[in-house]
């Protein structure tokens, strides 16, 4: 266990009847990082964080948050941990400001909740009832509630579900600002672009197990395989295969496809330029976390 670990999960196991939801899961989250739990629906992500939120009692293993056994002593974490739960609502007729005031009262001492109204774009909605908010406004309120009182650890479970693309990007910026203030964030998501943009490290879950964990860039690099460079051009480019970094050169009509490993684009560009060639559409396809995820789990998100 590293010194700055604020969350330690060891050999966690949780079953629902005969179905094993979480199977021997271990990971650590360090202070001040955004840690992503990735996986398709039913992979066990939500069950894992629910054990950390004190909402479920695991059958085996340990789930410690800030040194506290989360399932046994949830009251010791009151005010130190913020949660945004998947599929959770507030009372229909509760107003926005009342919700913030109520959750602010769960933290010890006086808590300023008014700034969250402005930060999360809810100032004009402060007197509206929860049932009168749009899906995106509700989601923003629920995320804002998890941040009331500046908790040390925040769990966000599918926080951008229901948000339009603009609101998603705004939310990402706000969450990065929260992390920059030193808060540790656990982000549960099945949006790979979100994880790639926000997470310092991720754990990929599949069927109740963790199949990989590292930084997104390291995961991508480890699983990326062949790098693909393409450009259009006339003539024969078979000579590019002589470059040590290139494995194959194939023509598809006007397109030339070069496969290799490592910084293929740089070497191909240099070799082409040496011969006075500078195709304007020379490009490489950077492998994404999504492709890496598919390789790691061996199936798509919809499975």
């Amino acid at each position: 266990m590293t010194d700055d670990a604020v969350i330690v999960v060891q050999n966690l196991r949780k079953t629902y009847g005969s179905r094993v939801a979480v199977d021997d899961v271990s990971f650590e989250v360090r202070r001040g990082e955004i840690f992503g739990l990735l996986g398709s629906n039913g992979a066990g992500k939500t069950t894992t964080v629910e054990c950390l939120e004190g909402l479920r009692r695991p059958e085996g293993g340990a789930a410690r948050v800030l040194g506290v056994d989360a399932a046994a002593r949830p009251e010791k974490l009151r005010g130190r941990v913020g949660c945004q739960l998947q599929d959770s609502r507030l009372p229909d007729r509760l107003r926005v400001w009342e919700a913030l005031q109520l959750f602010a009262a769960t933290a010890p001492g006086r808590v300023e909740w008014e700034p969250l109204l402005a930060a999360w774009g809810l100032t004009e909605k402060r007197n509206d009832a929860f049932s009168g908010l749009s899906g995106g406004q509700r989601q923003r309120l629920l995320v804002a509630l998890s941040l009331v009182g500046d908790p040390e650890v925040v769990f966000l479970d599918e926080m951008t579900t229901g948000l339009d693309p603009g609101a998603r990007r705004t939310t990402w910026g706000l969450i990065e600002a929260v992390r920059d203030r030193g808060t540790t964030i656990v982000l549960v998501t099945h949006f790979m672009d979100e994880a790639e943009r926000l997470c310092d490290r991720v754990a990929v879950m599949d069927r109740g197990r963790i199949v990989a964990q590292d930084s997104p860039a390291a995961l991508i690099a480890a699983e990326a395989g062949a790098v693909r460079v393409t450009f259009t051009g006339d003539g024969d480019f078979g000579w590019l295969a002589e470059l040590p970094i290139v494995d194959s050169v194939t023509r598809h009509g006007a397109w030339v496809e070069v496969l290799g490993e490592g910084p293929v684009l740089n070497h191909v560009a240099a070799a082409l330029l040496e011969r006075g060639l500078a195709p304007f559409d020379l490009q490489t396809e950077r492998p994404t976390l999504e492709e890496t995820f598919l390789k790691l789990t061996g199936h798509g998100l919809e499975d």
Partner: protein
Amino acid sequence: MRLFRLLTWVEVKLFLREPLTVVFAFGFPLVMLFVLAEVFGTVPVVPDPGDPVAFRGLSPLGYYVPGYIALAAAAAGLIMIPAHLAAYRESGVLRRFRAAAIPAWIIFGSQVAVEAALSLIGGALVTVAAYAAYDIAAPVSVVGSLVAFLFIVAAFAAIGVALGAVMPSPRAAQGAGVMLFFVMMMLSGTGPPLDVMTPLMRDIGAALPLQHAVLAVQDPWLGFGWNWLQLGILAGVTVVCGALATLAFRRQ
């Protein structure tokens, strides 16, 4: 305590924003009492030879007033709490509260506090309205009546929380609460007086808590003394329903 006070205040506001529940909890017992007062009046009914004594031989309205105080508590417990708690359970509000580590005693205590306040206001409205509009005798034992009232409030709070815990959906909880309320109203001495009911009606009523609640407050109110048996039954209902609710909520 600060959190308990705030959540209770929030619950009061949420209740006041449900106009139908407000009207029902406060208005319904008043309307019923008005109808009964106009039909049966305040003068003791002298039965024909061979007929049973009705209203325990007392003023009909005087007979009904303590019963309707119990009924006001039943309305608060059965009409408000079950649907409200079942909705909290189903929509994840309870999970969200628990994730914020709000203690269970605060969550359920605030419900009971609101229910108790509503029962008190409902019972006071019934009493004040009856004494203001009609000429009836004052309660014989105020202390006995108040103690019985506390037992009644506790029992119906426990029943309401238990219904909210075990009913599968808010609609089912609402339906169960309303049905239980009306069946009990007809069979517990708040509709036809107990002394003119058939033995079968009285037996069915005896299986339901409102009849015990009515007798528990009626006896000291009308001068028949404390009814320890009925107080004991109400305490038993409170314990059993409270335990049932605790178990059901723990399991989720």
